[in-house]
């Protein structure tokens, strides 16, 4: 594990009486690509703005590289931000935009010129020095915003939904571009997004947030394969989230039928939530399944078919490369490893909220 770089301790923040962050603790390590992921209003942007110095927390401390920077203004912090809507200076050309931070810090002209060249090359926009920001496309403007930030050699780059305003194709391109950039300059990226696919693609470490709380932290694989609660499971990818009862270790009762699983330590006859990813629901012939059901919908998605199967009174979402026509009776089989058991939320605050994202 790399060295600790930023530590948020017990951060709370409210706006007009609405609590946005509630006693949040977060540690970010050097050279990580960390993504704060969650629906709008979950507190991810506020967390980023507190790190950037644009908001002061009501309680708690921000520790940067061992120093308390809670009350330091943004211009005194060793980090730079890439804003959602680029926030380029429209009265300056591209070179002046990139040079802004360096001029403020009184760097010599030759150093500034070299840096401009280097940064434009890094973002693939060589020769754009004397263009005006308004003559650039959205994707190009965002690259300039990134160039303008990284020439200052920050220890951390904060990115606030930087790809939000771009179209899908460009967004995917920029995702790879950002990973390449991060590897090339080797600094910490803290990235805010509500797009789970973006988070899974780019991050080393994902922090899933909802309602001012961190719901789960971990690698993209951890978050996707082992969601800790129904909110995370629902937010990251498609999933079947079902009420169930843990009968004993390695056996769970789902809607009246017992399924073998691999999870232990939940106790006996304990109500739980079960997550099964649609690609882990296997459709087999009726006699081979643990349960049987009837196909009610089917959509061709390219790589796979997306089907809905009614069984035990529940609509199971299934992704499969095999096609089963609507109305057919099928068996459902789930590998014990693919049944993810989660504790029910203990308080209302942690309650999983169904989302339309």
């Amino acid at each position, binding site marked *: 594990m790399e060295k600790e770089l930023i530590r948020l301790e017990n951060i709370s923040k409210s706006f007009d009486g609405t609590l946005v962050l509630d006693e949040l603790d977060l540690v970010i390590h050097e050279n990580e690509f960390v993504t704060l992921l969650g629906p709008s209003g979950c507190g991810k942007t506020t967390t980023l703005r507190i790190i*950037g*110095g*644009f908001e002061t927390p009501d309680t708690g401390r921000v520790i940067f590289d061992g120093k308390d920077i809670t009350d330091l*203004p*943004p*211009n005194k912090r060793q980090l*730079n*931000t890439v*804003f*959602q*809507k680029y*926030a*380029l*200076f*429209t*009265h300056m050309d591209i070179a002046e935009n990139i040079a*802004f*931070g360096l001029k*403020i*810090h009184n760097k010599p002209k030759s150093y500034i010129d070299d840096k401009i060249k280097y940064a434009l090359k890094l973002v693939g926009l060589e020769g754009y020095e004397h263009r*005006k920001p*308004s003559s650039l496309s959205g994707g190009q403007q965002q690259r300039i*915003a990134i160039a*303008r*930030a990284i020439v*200052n050699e920050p220890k951390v780059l904060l990115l606030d939904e930087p790809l939000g305003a771009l179209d899908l194709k460009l967004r995917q391109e920029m995702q790879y571009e950002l990973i390449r950039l991060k590897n090339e300059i080797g600094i910490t990226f803290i990235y805010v997004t509500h797009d789970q696919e973006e988070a899974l693609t780019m991050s080393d470490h994902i922090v899933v947030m909802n309602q001012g709380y961190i719901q789960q932290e971990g690698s993209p694989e951890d978050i996707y394969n082992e969601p800790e609660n129904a909110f995370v499971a629902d937010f990251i990818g498609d999933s079947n989230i079902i009420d169930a009862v843990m009968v004993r270790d390695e056996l769970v009762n789902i809607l009246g039928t017992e399924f073998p699983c691999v999870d232990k330590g939940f106790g006996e006859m304990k109500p739980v939530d079960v997550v099964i990813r649609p690609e882990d629901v296997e459709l087999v012939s009726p006699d081979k399944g643990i349960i049987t059901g009837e196909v009610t919908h089917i959509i061709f998605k390219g790589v796979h078919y997306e089907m809905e199967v009614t069984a035990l009174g529940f609509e199971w979402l299934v992704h499969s490369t095999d096609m089963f026509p609507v109305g057919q009776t099928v068996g459902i089989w789930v590998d014990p490893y693919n049944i993810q058991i989660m504790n029910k939320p203990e308080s209302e605050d942690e309650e999983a909220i169904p989302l339309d994202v």
Partner: protein
Amino acid sequence: MFKNKKTSAALSAPYTAWMTIFIIVPLLMIFYYGLTDSQGSLTLANITAIGYGVYFKSLLLALWLSFLCTLICFILAYPLALILARVSKNAGQGLIITIFILPMWMNFLLRTYAWLTLLEGNGIINGILSFLHLPTQHMINTPTAIVFGMVYNFLPFMVLPLYNAISRIDTAVFEAARDLGAGRRQTLFRITLPLSVNGIISGVTMVFIPALTTFAISTLLGGSKVLLIGNVIESTFTQVYDWHLGSGLSIVLMIFIIINMIISNISDARQEAEG
């Protein structure tokens, strides 16, 4: 908007007629009188008169006082516009603006008369001064009094364009400047001021032009002691009855106004090009 040219011609006819009768014809008359003498022969004497004596002095004084007025308005208005643009709507922004333009609901002459009672020899300000056993000041009928009156009357015309321009700047731009290391002062001078230059130019135009051409304020607060070019032109028409000279001097004043408007148009066009 209208595909049929006849329709749009018909719709614009009333205003075209109005404009022709009350704007274009008078303007042509001013040019005719300004460029001829009483015998009707062509001359530039009415225009070159501006270079002499009372005309020249009154023009210089008018330029100087309207410059001062514009400068004071700018210094008063810019910080206010900054605050207004940052105060959110629900925090009483509307109320502040209303209070600010409230004096404009009163008649212009009435407002200026109010300054008369404040500034005159045994007016309110001197009353307070003598009550405090301080020496009374001679304020009425001085250029200073005129500047007071101008600033009071024209300040709202400076605040509103500045406020519009500043509030249109995305707040993320200020944050970006701070993020890149700029302090508050550097952000103001390198980002906010240059990005609001259009508002500054239109505010300056809207204060400078009426200040330059005023004769009501200078008549009331300057008595007949302080003559601005506006007063001179007025008396040339109404007392000397020399329409030729009056028109000539008006043309000179028009040139200053046109210069000001050209600058403002150039900056508008540039802003549009930058998006």
